[in-house]
């Protein structure tokens, strides 16, 4: 099967500038020039010459028609990766082909192969003008004739279910509708690949579910469009993606189907039903047993549940004893499924000892 996206050692470094090139006050340029000349910024601090490595080395292979997820916490380098693939940022090193075209050399063909949707996609709409007018204008900027633009706008409005809002302005939309508007804008052209950067961030559960099912069912399944989606929601990746690359600090730490990723984890999760396990006891418990990853749902009286991620060799009785040693009572326990969240924690090795 043909590969829709291939990246080899794609890397992005940002110069660490102070002031940052994304901030602005009226006299920022003066501060910037002075800092270049004197090596100091306005507060007299030295301008750091170090560079931020946002993406260390990205190696991906996404098949045509695949729903591929890039899962990682904030700052992992997901957006930077998407922006490089969208030709907005120049890679510092590495190569990539999209739809068979070289990212740097054939950037025009790359642009014509992708649609891009991100969480702030609705921001670029003129709030003074109707949604329909905005979409038509974008379609024309992307090269459609007036007639084509009008027809295509109606089509995408129907697809995302916003036809009844077409004559209103984007300011009147709910956050879920705004996200669908961003999707509509991302679909004005019929590109074979969709780059989707955190499309459900900040949405309520219902809106998020609607956006997810739209991308999964309408875009990926029905139209066969390859989707590269970034998210920091573990369930979203689990639920939607054929394959997931787990990203941390600019690196891919694992890449496989969600099921295989979860199966690969050498750990088990145990839910302990506890009573009278007060906050200071929990503190002690966590301190003494740093090898376990503990998440808790406890009320003020210390009643509730503990979820303990531990080595598969660990006996449940060991955990029960440990809770009791700290002063709590265990009233029952059960096994819990391993989640992609657990996979992430195990792989990044921050909490759980191997």
């Amino acid at each position: 099967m043909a590969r829709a996206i291939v990246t080899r050692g794609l890397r992005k470094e940002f110069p660490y500038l102070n002031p940052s090139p994304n901030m602005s006050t009226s006299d920022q340029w003066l501060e910037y020039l002075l800092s270049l000349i004197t090596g100091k910024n306005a507060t007299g601090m030295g301008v750091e010459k170090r560079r931020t490595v946002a993406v260390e080395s990205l190696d991906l292979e996404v098949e045509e028609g695949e729903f591929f997820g890039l899962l990682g916490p904030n700052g992992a380098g997901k957006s930077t990766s998407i922006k490089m693939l969208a030709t907005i940022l120049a890679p510092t090193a590495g190569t990539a082909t999209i739809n068979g075209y070289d990212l740097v050399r054939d950037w025009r063909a790359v642009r014509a192969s992708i649609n891009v949707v991100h969480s702030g996609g609705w921001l670029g709409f003129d709030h003074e003008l109707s949604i329909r007018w905005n979409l038509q204008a974008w379609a024309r900027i992307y090269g459609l004739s007036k007639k084509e633009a009008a027809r295509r706008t109606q089509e995408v409005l129907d697809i995302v279910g916003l036809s009844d809002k077409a004559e209103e302005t984007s300011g009147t939309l709910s956050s879920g509708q705004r996200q669908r508007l961003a999707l509509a804008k991302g679909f004005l052209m019929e590109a074979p690949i969709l780059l989707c950067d955190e499309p459900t961030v900040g949405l309520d559960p219902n809106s998020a579910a609607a956006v997810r099912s739209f991308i999964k069912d309408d875009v990926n399944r029905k139209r066969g469009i390859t989707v590269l989606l970034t998210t920091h929601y573990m369930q979203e990746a689990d639920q939607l993606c054929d394959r997931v690359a787990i990203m941390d600090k600019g690196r891919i730490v694992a890449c496989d189907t969600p099921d295989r990723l979860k199966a690969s984890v050498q750990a088990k999760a145990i839910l302990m039903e506890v009573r009278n396990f007060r906050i200071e006891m929990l503190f002690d418990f966590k301190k003494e047993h740093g090898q376990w990853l503990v998440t808790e749902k406890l009320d003020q009286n210390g009643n509730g549940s503990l979820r303990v991620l531990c080595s598969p060799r660990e006996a449940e009785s060991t955990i029960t004893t440990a809770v009791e040693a700290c002063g709590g009572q265990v009233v029952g326990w059960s096994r819990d499924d391993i989640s992609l969240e657990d996979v992430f924690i195990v792989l990044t090795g921050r909490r759980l000892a191997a």
Partner: protein
Amino acid sequence: MSSTAMPKTRLNLRETLGVMSVLAERNFRLMTRFSASAVMFYIGVFADAAISAFLGTALIGQAQAAQIGGDYVSYVIVGLAYSQLMYTSISAPHQSLSGAYWSARLEPLLRAPLPLRTIIMGDALFSYFTDFVTIAIYGLVGILFGMAMPSSGVILPAAGILVLGCVSVLGFGFLSASMFNLINAKAPVANSEPVQWLVRTLQRLVCGVYFPVTALPGWLQTVGNFMPQTYVLDAVRRLLIPNYPKGPTLPVHSSFGLDPQVANLIAIAVLTAFILPLGLWAFDKGLEKARKDGGLSRWT
């Protein structure tokens, strides 16, 4: 899905003009949402023109007026009208780029199948249209103050010089826009970008908008020699003001022994050939830098 919405890698001329027209239409639609401020703006223009004309009639004697073609009103109205369009060329590119950036439109614009500079120029088109309203108001003030009307035969050449002037200072405009990325001059405040501020200030001071450049000390005249606006304003006054002096009026005119009007055109051409490529080159360099530094997109 039908195949007409297949993404394009490049746009042909017709499609490019389509993009420009939709950008102009957008600006027009946005302006009509702010019609009160538009009316206030034009009343301000009227007042400014009237102030200059009153100053002229009140303070300038017959003797001085002879140097500038008989009456100061014609002199200053022509100067103001032309400098207005040149201001637009100087400030519109930065304004357009910074507007796109701050309203989160820049990234999607960059993915469009045509160069950003073309989009920037399309965005500037509407500013030129509004300038024509400004110019009409200047004309009206001129008529009210009894300005001598030019013959219809000079309209076409005067329009030609207008286009020439706009194109040649557009190089300064793109140079100004390049500073958005090159030195991080991102503030969306008019005239806050230093290149734009400098060129606009110099234009008013040394290019002969309000008074002949010969009134300036020599070193300031020298500065004016390097600005196309100086020649544009002189050239257009030669066309539009019937009694404008026929002999040399600028330092350069006497240097080469050419007909002053021919010398003007050559000077404009030479300066444009230098400034416009410089501006476009710097603009692309700025984009290149921002693609590397990550200065194109606000953090998300």
